[in-house]
């Protein structure tokens, strides 16, 4: 603490340079924050996928259906605790840009498999009791200002007509970063009204007794329906969601590449700043050495200055990214999880501080290396 006034005075010595360096860190960490948000959104659910859940879909493609009659057959396979199903509804609320996912679900079994969603029991019962009812996620309800009891029109794109639904329940996730941007409606209602693919579902979700036996159970399910007109492909929920994310491209690699380039550039910028700063102060550092300041302490002071720059800029960038998330998903639903987790903020800050330390280390060592008398000659 006793060196803080010296550190602050040194930082304010070249105000423009200090501000520009802080600005570089801020911009880089803002980008890091946004990339982390997008990465999380595009790999949505992979992190929170249930280890004890399998997804069973048509082997040909996810958009191909499976017979509803499979539900009972899957339930009888060893290791299966519960089976539910869901179907993509694909409706539009008011405008095509208001995209959000809608699933027709089996209300009888849904909560046996998806145990992580939270809502008052009376709301769930109200939803179950109303065939035209629906349950919506908290974030979705907040986005459109929906309240319980509201009647909302959804224009069908796969299943024609206007589907008027009553909001009977608003659910929340178990974790704050869990997506709550979906709408659930009754499968029975959908199957009753639609004129095509009656008696079919989109996919099955299977809860298994032992996550360690996931591969065996998945194999047993696929074997059960092998050589049938509707062969299945079963995999863990995490693998299923990763597969969905991969359809967009190798997002993680792209983000990693962009992030690496940005941080490397930042390292050069900050390293250059610190090199100039330290070179300007070589004489002062030599004089401080004559006072008895050990080289290690002077190196720490140089690094502390760089860390302060990195910390201030990094924190500002991350706070800015966080503030952007508080404003909600700017893509109006394409990024259902729009959340910067504390762990990602800590990682960003750690990276910034690490860069700050590396950027100061080499110029600092170079400036303090050698005999004092040689450095004093330059004063």
């Amino acid at each position, binding site marked *: 603490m006793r060196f803080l006034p*010296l550190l602050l005075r040194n930082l*304010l010595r070249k105000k423009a340079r200090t501000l520009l360096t802080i600005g570089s860190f801020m911009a880089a960490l803002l980008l890091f924050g946004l990339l982390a948000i997008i990465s999380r959104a595009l790999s949505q659910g992979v992190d929170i996928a249930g280890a004890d859940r399998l997804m069973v879909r048509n082997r040909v493609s996810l958009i191909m259906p499976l017979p509803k009659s499979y539900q009972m057959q899957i339930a009888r396979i060893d290791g299966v605790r519960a089976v539910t199903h869901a179907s993509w509804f694909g409706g539009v609320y008011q405008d095509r840009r208001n995209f959000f996912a809608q699933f027709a679900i089996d209300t009888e079994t849904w909560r046996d498999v998806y145990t992580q969603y939270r809502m008052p029991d009376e709301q769930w019962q109200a939803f179950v009791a109303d065939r035209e009812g629906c349950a919506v996620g908290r974030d979705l309800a907040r986005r459109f200002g929906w309240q319980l009891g509201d009647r909302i029109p959804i224009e069908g794109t796969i299943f024609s007509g206007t589907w008027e639904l009553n909001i009977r329940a608003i659910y929340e996730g178990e974790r704050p970063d869990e997506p709550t941007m979906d709408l659930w409606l009754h499968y029975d209602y959908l199957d009753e009204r639609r004129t095509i693919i009656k008696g079919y579902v989109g996919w099955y979700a299977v809860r298994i007794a032992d996550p360690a036996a996931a591969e065996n159970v998945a194999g047993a399910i696929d074997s059960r329906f092998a050589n049938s007109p509707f062969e299945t492909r079963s995999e863990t929920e995490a693998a299923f969601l990763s597969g969905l994310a991969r359809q967009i491209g190798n997002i993680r690699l792209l983000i990693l590449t962009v992030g690496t380039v940005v941080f490397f550039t930042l390292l050069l910028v900050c390293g250059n700043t610190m090199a100039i700063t330290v070179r300007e102060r070589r004489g*002062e550092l030599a004089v401080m050495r*004559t006072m*008895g300041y*050990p080289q*290690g302490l002077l190196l720490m002071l140089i690094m502390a200055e760089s860390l302060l720059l990195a910390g201030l800029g990094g924190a500002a960038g991350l706070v800015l990214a966080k503030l952007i998330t508080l404003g909600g998903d700017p893509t109006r639903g394409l990024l259902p999880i729009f959340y910067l987790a504390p762990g990602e903020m800590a990682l960003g800050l750690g990276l910034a501080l690490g860069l700050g330390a590396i950027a100061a280390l080499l110029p600092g060592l170079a400036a303090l290396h050698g005999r*004092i008398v040689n450095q004093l000659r330059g*004063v």
Partner: protein
Amino acid sequence: MASTDTSGNTSSDSLIQVHGLVKTYRRGSEKIRVLSGLELEIDTGEFVAFMGPSGSGKTTLLNLLGGLDVPDTGSIRIAGEEMAGLSGRALSRWRARHVGFVFQTFNLIPVLTAARNVELPLLLTRLSRAERQRHVAAALELVGLAGRMDHYPRQLSGGQEQRVAIARALVSDPDLLLCDEPTGDLDRDTSEEIVDLLRQLSDQHQKTILMVTHDPRAADRADHVLLLERGRLVRAADAQAAS
């Protein structure tokens, strides 16, 4: 008393005892011997001026005595402590405790006030903030700048800057003040003020002061003037005779 006894015999109660000091620098393939077997004794409280032509080894000697450089051979014993065996870190600690430096170009840190500049050596001690402030105020009072504590170097005259530098050198109460041409950048009147101040520190506070100078008027105010020629010390009387 300052002496240049070439017999190698030194009295054990001297503050500084230098024996057989040799220092060589290398310039490319050429070896330049700056100090050649130098002998020196200086007692506590003495004010000694070193004179001599450029390249005679004055500043090199000062650097060696201040622990900024190490001799090739020879011994430097200050306050009973042999410096040859000290590591770089130990030398740093030794400098912080025993030596204050004053430079020709003042070398104040421009972004710190006079008080903060003077406080710098004290940041290495365990003194509390209040104690540090008390020491700083006393040092600036001693050099006649009590009213300039919050001034930045750019707001001070050259003489005042050098006074701040002297206060900074004094604030940790070192045994030894090493001044490398402290009046070199000052006009005549200001130079006299600075030398007066050094004289006062020697007389009233028993500080041992070694001053390198080219200014005979400044040297005249010292207790002893020692002339360096080709890496060896010549007695003051000889120096005056030579000049």
